[in-house]
C-alpha cells in the first residue's frame, strides 16, 4: 500500500492533538475537523489544516457520518484516524471509509462488528482458549434458565445486556430472590437503551481488578503484545488512573495474559492496534472481558515504558508495513502511571464542569508527559466529554513513578474549571494505592469527598486571600442575600449534595 500523505482526524480534544503530533513527526499533513464551538479548540490551532463539520452536538458534527466522509473526500484525505470514541468502533464508518476509497486507520469492519457483539466476542475468546468468567454460553432465554444457571454458577452473579458496555446495562444479583426483579428490570433497560433485550449471566467477582493487554497486529498476520495496563481505579465505570505494568501480575501471569491476548487477536485475524480487556480476581486468576478495537485513552503509559509510538505503529500498519519494523517488542523499562485530569467538581459529587480555563501551568520536568486538549483562555464546551488532559509520568520503579505523579500534581495549576487534581493527589498518596492493592471498588472502599476538604493551613491562607480581596474592593463587597436568593440556594444545595456522599 502507498505511503499516506494526508490524514484526517475524525475526533477532537487531547486525542486529536495526540494524533496530530505523530503525523507531523512523520511528515504527513494533519487535517482536523471541528464543530462550531470547537473553532478555537487546540486541535484546530495545531493541525496543518482544519475544516468545519457542523454544530456543537456530536450528532451534528463529530458523529455526522456523511459530513465527515464528505469532508474527507473534499479535502483529499487519503486516510482517517478515528481516535477513540465517536466513530472509533463503528463498523458502518469503517465501511463508509472503504467505500470512499479512504484508508480507515484501525481494524477491518468485520472485526469491529464481530468484537462489538459481546457474545460473539465471548465465543471467539472461548474458541481461542481464553479463560472466561463462568457464565451462560449465550443469551439466557428465560427466568427459569437464569435460576438454573444461578445455582450452577453461584451468587452473587452479573446480569449483563448483550448490547451493553462501558458499565451500562449490567446489574449485580445477590440471591435467587433478587433475580426475579433484576431479570425484568435489566431486560427492560437493555431494550430501552440498546433496542435489544437479550441478557446473559456471569459470576460476579468480588473485588475485581481491571487489567488489559495492548496488542498490535499487521497485515502479514503477525501479532505482538506490548504488555498490560492496570485500570482498576474507576468511578462510575470511568477509568481515573492507569498504570503499567500491573502490580497484580507475576512474570508467569504476565506472560500468560499476553499470550492469551495474542491468541484471540490471531483467532479473529485482527489488524492494527487493539486492547484485550480482562478482569482478575484476588487470586490473580484472569478472565476475558472484551476487546476494544481502537487506541485506548490510556495508551501513553505503554509508550512510556516501551518507547514505542503507538499512533506511528497504527499508521505504518495501515500503510501495510510490518509492525515494529519487523523487530521484536523491546523489553519494557520502568513504570508509568496516567492520571486523567477531568473537568468535574469534587464538591458536587464529581459532577462534570465546564467553563473557561482562566489559568493553567502544566507540570513539566523529568519523567512527565502531558497530553492536553486545553490552553489558557480556552472555553471547555458542554457538548463533549470532560477529559481536559492526561498527566503521564515515568519512573524507574513504581514508587518513583508514584512520587513523581504526586510531585507533578503538586505543581499542576489549573483554574477556572473545577477539576479532580486534588482527588488524584489524595489517590496517589493513599497507602493502599502505594501498596498496589487495587480493585474497581477502590473508591467505594476508601474514598469520601470530605477527604478533599481543605485543611487548617488552607483555611488560614483562604482567610488571608479573602482579606486581600476585600481590601482591594472593600467598596464592592456584595450586599446581603435577598430572601430565597437564587445563587446561594443552589450553592448550598450543591455543597450539601456533595458533602452528603
Amino acid at each position, binding site marked *: 500500500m502507498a505511503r499516506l500523505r494526508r490524514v484526517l482526524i475524525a475526533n477532537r480534544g487531547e486525542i486529536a492533538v495526540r494524533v496530530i503530533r505523530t503525523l507531523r513527526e512523520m511528515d504527513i499533513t494533519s487535517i482536523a475537523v471541528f464543530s462550531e464551538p470547537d473553532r478555537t479548540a487546540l486541535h484546530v490551532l495545531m493541525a496543518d489544516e482544519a475544516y468545519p463539520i457542523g454544530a456543537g452536538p456530536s450528532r451534528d458534527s463529530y458523529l455526522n457520518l456523511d459530513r465527515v466522509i464528505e469532508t474527507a473526500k473534499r479535502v483529499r484525505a487519503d486516510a482517517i484516524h478515528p481516535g477513540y470514541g465517536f466513530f472509533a468502533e463503528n463498523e458502518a464508518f469503517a465501511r463508509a471509509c472503504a467505500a470512499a476509497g479512504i484508508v480507515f486507520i484501525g481494524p477491518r469492519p468485520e472485526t469491529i462488528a464481530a468484537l462489538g457483539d459481546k457474545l460473539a466476542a465471548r465465543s471467539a475468546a472461548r474458541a481461542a482458549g481464553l479463560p472466561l468468567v463462568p457464565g451462560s454460553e449465550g443469551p439466557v432465554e428465560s427466568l427459569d434458565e437464569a435460576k438454573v444457571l444461578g445455582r450452577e454458577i453461584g451468587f452473587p452473579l452479573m446480569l449483563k445486556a448483550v448490547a451493553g458496555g462501558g458499565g451500562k446495562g449490567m446489574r449485580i444479583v445477590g440471591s435467587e430472590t433478587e433475580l426475579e426483579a433484576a431479570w425484568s428490570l435489566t431486560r427492560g433497560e437493555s431494550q430501552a437503551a440498546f433496542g435489544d433485550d437479550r441478557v446473559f449471566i456471569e459470576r460476579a467477582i468480588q473485588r475485581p481488578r481491571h487489567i488489559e493487554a495492548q496488542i498490535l497486529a499487521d497485515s502479514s498476520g503477525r501479532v505482538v503484545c506490548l504488555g498490560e495496563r492496570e485500570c482498576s481505579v474507576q468511578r462510575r465505570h470511568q477509568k481515573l488512573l492507569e498504570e503499567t505494568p500491573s502490580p497484580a501480575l507475576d512474570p508467569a501471569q504476565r506472560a500468560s495474559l499476553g499470550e492469551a491476548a495474542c491468541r484471540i487477536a490471531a483467532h479473529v485475524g485482527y489488524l492494527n492496534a487493539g486492547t484485550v480487556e480482562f478482569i482478575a480476581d484476588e487470586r490473580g486468576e484472569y478472565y476475558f472481558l472484551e476487546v476494544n478495537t481502537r487506541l485506548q485513552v490510556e495508551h501513553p503509559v505503554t509508550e512510556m515504558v516501551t518507547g514505542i509510538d503507538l499512533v506511528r505503529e497504527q499508521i505504518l500498519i495501515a500503510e501495510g508495513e510490518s509492525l515494529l519494523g519487523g523487530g521484536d517488542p523491546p523489553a519494557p523499562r520502568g513504570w508509568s502511571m496516567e492520571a486523567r485530569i477531568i473537568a468535574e467538581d469534587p*464538591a*458536587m459529587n464529581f*459532577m*462534570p*464542569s*465546564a467553563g473557561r480555563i*482562566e*489559568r493553567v501551568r502544566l507540570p513539566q520536568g523529568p519523567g512527565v508527559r502531558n497530553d492536553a486538549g486545553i490552553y489558557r483562555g480556552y472555553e471547555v464546551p*458542554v*457538548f*463533549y*466529554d*470532560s477529559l481536559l488532559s492526561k498527566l503521564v509520568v515515568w519512573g524507574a520503579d513504581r514508587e518513583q513513578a508514584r512520587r513523581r505523579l504526586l510531585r507533578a*500534581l*503538586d505543581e499542576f*495549576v489549573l*483554574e*477556572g474549571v473545577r*477539576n479532580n*487534581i*486534588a482527588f488524584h*493527589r489524595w489517590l496517589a498518596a493513599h497507602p493502599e494505592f502505594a501498596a498496589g492493592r487495587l480493585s474497581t471498588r477502590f473508591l467505594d472502599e476508601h474514598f469520601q469527598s470530605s477527604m478533599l476538604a*481543605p485543611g487548617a493551613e*488552607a*483555611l*488560614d*491562607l*483562604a*482567610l*488571608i*486571600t*479573602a*482579606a*486581600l*480581596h*476585600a*481590601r*482591594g474592593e*472593600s467598596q464592592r*463587597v*456584595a*450586599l*446581603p*442575600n*435577598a*430572601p*430565597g436568593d*437564587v*445563587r*446561594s*440556594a*443552589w*450553592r*448550598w*444545595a*450543591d*455543597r*450539601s*449534595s456533595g458533602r*452528603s456522599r
Partner: protein
Amino acid sequence: MKFWISLEGRDAEVEFRSEADKVWIEVDGKTLEADFHPLPDGEVYSLLVNGHSHEVRVSTVRDQLEVSLRGITFPVEVRNPIEKVLKGLTRASGAGTGETIVAPMPGVVVAYRVKPGDLVVPGQAVVVVEAMKMQNELMARHGGVVTEVLAAERASVAAGQPLLKLKAAPMPDAAKPAVA
C-alpha cells in the same frame, strides 16, 4: 480594617492590616503575617507565610466569592460587621421563605423527581440535569413544597437558570443546615 469572613462553615471576625507587600491579619486571637505579590491571569497572589510559598486565587462565580489553592476551590463570604447583622436576619428568614433550584451548569433537563404540590425534605433529589454526557441529580437544601416548575423536561438550560421553586414548609430543626 475589619471584616467578617465565613468559609467552610467557619465564621470569623478578621482584623486586617497591610503595608507595602506585607499583610497582617488577626483572627481567633492569632496573628497571620504574609508577604504577598500579585500574579497574572486573574486575582492571583503569591504568598510567603513564614517563608512558606503558596499560590492562591480569588474569583467570583455568579456573585459567589471563591478561593482556590492547591487544586481545591471553596466558597468564601466577606462582609463588614453591619452586613453581618443584616445577613443574620435574612438568613434566619431565608429558610422560611423557600428556595429556588437552579442549573449549576449548562445542560439538558432530563427529568423532575417531583411535581408541584410535592413535599420535599432537605437533601432530597428534585431534578436530573444531563451535562457533558453525564446525568446529575440536583438536591434541595431546605426543602419545602414545590410551587413551580420553571423549565420543561428535555429543555436546554443555561448555567444559573432557575428550574424549580419551593415554598417553605415547617421542618424539624435537625434538618436545618449546620453551616451558616
